[in-house]
């Protein structure tokens, strides 16, 4: 967070400078009875294109086009500048006219997802590190499967050894649901302790019906559940760290496309 704030200082100063330049040009256009909206519009469009260029930069890894960390800082500061320019350009949060409203809808969604993205990159990496487990996202299904197999092996071993199906029945009725796939998605995202509470209550519920010999099997089962909780947290946080881009990037491309059409319309009908 501190690192990101440091990196933002220069881009924010640049953004303020750009806005200052726009202000002067806008005032001059107003005094000369020109069309200030044209000036602010071009500034806004230029800023949006610059923001879009960040995604292009990712494709140019083999070219020396500057470190991505600088680009990201410029992207965030540019996003803030774009919001300011949008308000300056339209003079309102919600313009009239259907086409403008489509444009504004896209703009605000892209803006909101951008803010959400910043919140995500500031919050979730630390949360993942603190979980004490690290796993590559694509390997999570395999790991969940592996944990489930071990859990089922414990249950089967308990039943075979002591001839009692108490733990097995309980597993089928309740714990199997937990081991089947990643659970408590939202709870993990908000940093809750729902999974731990769920495991504890379902573990305690059956413990009184088990013999002293069967209890160690339950303990190992709950240890596996705890292990899976950490994997689930990885799944939820890593998933959201990817998914927000699924909305942000395509909608920003759509925004650029519609903005181009907006420009064309302005120049066609302004004449």
């Amino acid at each position, binding site marked *: 967070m501190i690192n990101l704030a440091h990196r933002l200082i220069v881009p924010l100063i640049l953004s303020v400078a750009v806005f200052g330049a726009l202000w002067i040009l806008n005032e001059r256009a107003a005094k000369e009875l020109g069309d200030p909206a044209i000036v602010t519009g071009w500034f806004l469009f230029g800023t949006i294109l610059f923001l879009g260029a960040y995604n292009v930069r990712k494709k140019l890894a083999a070219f020396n086009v500057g470190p991505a960390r600088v680009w990201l800082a410029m992207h965030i500061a540019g996003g803030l500048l774009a919001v300011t320019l949008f308000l300056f350009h339209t003079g309102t949060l919600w313009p009239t006219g259907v086409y403008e409203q489509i444009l504004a809808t896209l703009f605000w969604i892209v803006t909101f997802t951008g803010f959400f993205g910043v919140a995500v990159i500031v919050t979730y*990496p630390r949360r993942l590190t603190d979980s004490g487990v*690290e796993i590559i996202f694509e390997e999570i299904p395999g790991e969940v499967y592996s944990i489930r197999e071990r859990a089922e092996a414990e249950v089967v071993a308990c039943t075979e050894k002591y001839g009692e199906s108490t733990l097995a029945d309980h597993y089928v009725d309740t714990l199997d649901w937990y081991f089947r796939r990643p659970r408590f998605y939202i709870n993990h995202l908000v940093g809750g302790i729902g999974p731990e509470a769920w495991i504890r209550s379902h573990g305690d519920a059956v413990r009184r019906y088990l013999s002293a010999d069967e209890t160690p099997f339950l303990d190992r089962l709950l240890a596996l559940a705890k292990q899976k909780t950490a994997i689930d947290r990885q799944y939820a946080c890593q998933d959201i760290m990817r998914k927000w881009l699924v909305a942000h990037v395509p909608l920003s491309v759509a925004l650029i496309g519609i903005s181009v059409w907006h420009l064309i319309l302005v120049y066609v009908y302004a004449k």
Partner: protein
Amino acid sequence: MLMARPEIRSIDAGAFPNTLPLDGIVRYDMRVNRYRAGDIVVREGDYGNSAFLVLQGELVIAGSPGIPAEQLGRIQTHREGTFRRVANLWRNSWVPEVRDVDRYGRRTGDQGSQTRKRGAYLQDVPAIMRDQDTITLNEGTLFGELAALGRVPRSSTIFAERPAIVMEIRWQGLRDIMKFDHEWRRKINDLYRGAALRSYLRQIDILSGVSNEQFSAIAKHCLFETYGTFDWSATFRRGKPDEPIIASEGDYPDGLLVIRAGFARVSMRYGKGRRTLTYLGAGDMYGLDELYQAWENPNATNLQLRYTISALGYVDVIRIPVTVLEEHVFPTIKEPDDPSTGALQRNVAEDALMEWALDKRYMNGTQSMVIDMDKCIRCDDCVRACAATHGGNPRFRREGPIFDHWMVANACMHCKDPVCMIGCPTGAIHRSIEGGTVLINDDTCIGCATCANSCPYNNIVMVSIRNRQGVAVIDTAESGQPIQKATKCDLCAGRPGGPACVRACPHDALSRVDFRDFHVGTMD
């Protein structure tokens, strides 16, 4: 044949213990190599683990200006042009590890591994003899012992101008013979004293004030010692790392230890365990403070060594005897600082990263990929950037051991002590002359996996290559198996701007670090 050679016959076999007889060393650590005209015996820049004795014929050392790198099978790290990089945007294949297989057949120059069974060779020996300053090594000459024992790269290329027979002796055999045979020990030490010791000692700060006469006296009395095993990576990979003690806390010092190669840990008793205070690399010294205090306070009684020094895998040291120091060095220097002062002011939590890094032997890395997991959003932009600059194939894995919030990813660390380079039969893996980066020449790699098996950190990956049609390339001539190549991070050699992975990280989470600097940086 070898036992009859005068160099071997002159060794007193009776001095060897029954558990390590001389004929056993000859049988298991020596072999006879026959070289044809043009065959390269050792190549400049290679790391090797054996010395050589010319048995019959002559060998030639290529002196100045040196044999061109391409004739030695080295990669020429040409800067990749803009047009080529633009073209790669479309050319990167979805099929992994695609190669232009025809290129292997088109190669010219040495490399001969594809066409000749034995090692590498030089094609135009007469031209080399004409263009190079050469030195001839005659029958009975011993060479290569410096690189074998000192873990330093071969300083020059030696090849056969005419057919020659050469005895090769592994470093273990050389070490054992030196241990039990005074004459061999004297001969090899004299070779080192004459060839490299003086220039090495000249780089040591405390010897900068001594006169030439004093310097000669110091060089004359230096002792050479080796601790640990040359192939320490083998025991390390098995989870049983060697760490032999060189000198223990409480011992009385008898000489200054100067690290020549490898790494050593300096530690002290702490609770029921040992606390690492620092680690030493090439050029660092141990025992100077205690020896100086003993010289300045001859009546003091508590002048034992305060710390223990142990070899982290393998370490080669020069011992300068205390009498020599007292006579020639101490009068010329100021009282040295206690090197552990800073370490003792820190608490154990502050040093936990160093303890972990030493246990993992990461001190070896000069370009370790360290990821700050508190910043990393697991987006894999680093992996994609690596793939984009390597034909669609990432050259590292974003996984590895984690300490606190630091992950050391599975990427080549470009080690100070590159054990991967020992034993490469074609010299395909080598250090670039320009920046010291460890590179693999894909053209000359024969897929033997020696480097991958040696790497203590599992950072070299063997891959099956495919042709442009995406079909696996098979060794139809011999094994019928897919042809493999060793691959690893090359630090984006030849591409502007440094490693693409670092540049591609939007969150400033990934960096390439020398662990000594990194440890200090994290404490700051």
